[in-house]
């Protein structure tokens, strides 16, 4: 219909997978981000140092290199450790899991910084009041700090999402049939690379547009009740 001789459905299927990978790795990234931010603010210096290494390494090395390292290197590493211990087993990460975990881990480094900034933006008075009321550290974090962190974290998280959803295109190098890879297959079969990739970019733009609208809504919700200066 769009000049791609029947391959349009392939692109849409790829788009669906792209969104799935994006959502799952975003959840993973948020999890790692919270963990990393807590680690960075911890009192034990080895934990802080580990978190520091995590964010520095994963933000300083190109994603393509990291994806290749993790997809091929990680299973080999675990299996080598296993055989050294006398256990013979097979770890088979299918590309979906490998890609999702990789992107989740990489962007966890970025969300760590977002959550760290959000934590420091919560007025200290709130935490003091909570402690004065007798809450211990964990309870304070869960009932007082975390709910308020979301408001400050949302813009940063929105930015990370924008970058993350485009990074999913890199998982095409490990054969996940997401949008980029399907566009590649379509371009090779129909010999119309420009058409195929242009359609793919239109789909990415649509995803971006929807994400921007959702982010606006989410920020409005998070800022409800806050008086603007």
């Amino acid at each position, binding site marked *: 219909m769009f000049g791609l001789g029947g391959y349009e459905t392939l692109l849409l299927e790829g788009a669906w997978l792209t969104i799935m990978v994006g959502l799952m790795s975003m959840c993973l990234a948020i999890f790692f981000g919270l963990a990393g931010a807590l680690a960075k603010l911890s009192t034990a210096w080895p934990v802080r140092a580990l978190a520091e290494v995590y964010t520095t390494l994963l933000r300083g090395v190109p994603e393509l290199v990291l994806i290749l390292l993790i997809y*091929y290197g990680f299973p080999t590493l675990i299996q080598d450790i*296993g055989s050294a211990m006398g256990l*013979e087993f097979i770890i*088979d990460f299918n590309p979906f899991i490998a890609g999702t975990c990789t992107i989740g881990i990489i962007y966890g480094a970025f969300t760590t910084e977002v959550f760290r900034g959000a934590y420091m933006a919560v007025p200290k008075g709130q935490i003091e009041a909570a402690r004065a009321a007798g809450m211990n550290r964990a309870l304070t974090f869960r009932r007082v700090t975390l709910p308020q962190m979301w408001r400050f974290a949302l813009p940063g998280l929105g930015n990370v999402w924008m970058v993350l959803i485009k990074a999913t295109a890199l998982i095409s190098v490990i054969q996940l049939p997401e949008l980029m890879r399907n566009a590649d297959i379509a371009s090779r079969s129909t010999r119309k690379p420009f058409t195929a990739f242009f359609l793919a970019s239109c789909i990415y733009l649509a995803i971006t547009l929807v994400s921007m609208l959702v982010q606006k809504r989410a920020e409005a919700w998070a800022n409800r009740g806050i008086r603007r200066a």
Partner: protein
Amino acid sequence: MKRLLTIIAAVLALAMLAAPAMAKDWKTVRVGTEGAYPPFNRVDENGQLQGFDIDIANALCKEMGVQCDFVVQDWDGLIPGLLAKKYDCIIASMSMTPERKQRVDFTDKYYQTPAKFVAAKGSNFEISKAGLKGKIVGVQGGTTHENFVTDKFGDVVDIKPYKTLDEACSDLAIGRVDLVLGDSVAFVEFLGSPDGKGYGFTGPGYTDVAYFGEGIGIAVRKENPELTEMLSKAIAAIRADGTYKTINAKYFDFDIYGD
């Protein structure tokens, strides 16, 4: 600190719960293949694998009485994938070179064809260091052909490695590269297509054992010699009983086994 240790222990425990080895009694054999190397292996419009390698693989599995499961993997990830145990053998027109033999074991050969250059008809490139000076040569990345061109002509030509031979041929057709080196049989589809009309073989066929090995074989991990044995026996069997000839005739009008 304690929490960190608990987490590490949990990860290791989870790792050990992973699938136990498809060990010594082979009921299912996972075959790794490229899926982008017609006529030997390709993925058709319905997502199914087709090709000479696929038919041979199915014939061998039938002969061995096991079930074949195919896994598609980009070319330069084939051997790393085998070593990472994503599949148990590679049937993807892989040459048995000395370099590769250091990492994996190979069965006996199941075919052998020379490597050749393809260029525009009438370009009359002289295949020597002087004749190719300043030219651009396309190859599939991670192949014996890339190694050959790098070593023999690397200092005078500009080498462009592509993900697949198909991409290299596409760029040849639009003039981005002057020549492409690859397996002579793998070019047949391109040369027969409308894009390949003005192109043809140029120069001699190459069969140096140091670069192209002793033919095309099946790669197996070194710790599975029994699988290598089984596959070699099966190859001999299908050659003896005529199955090989039937598959050969389906794709080529000459004997691809070589001598």
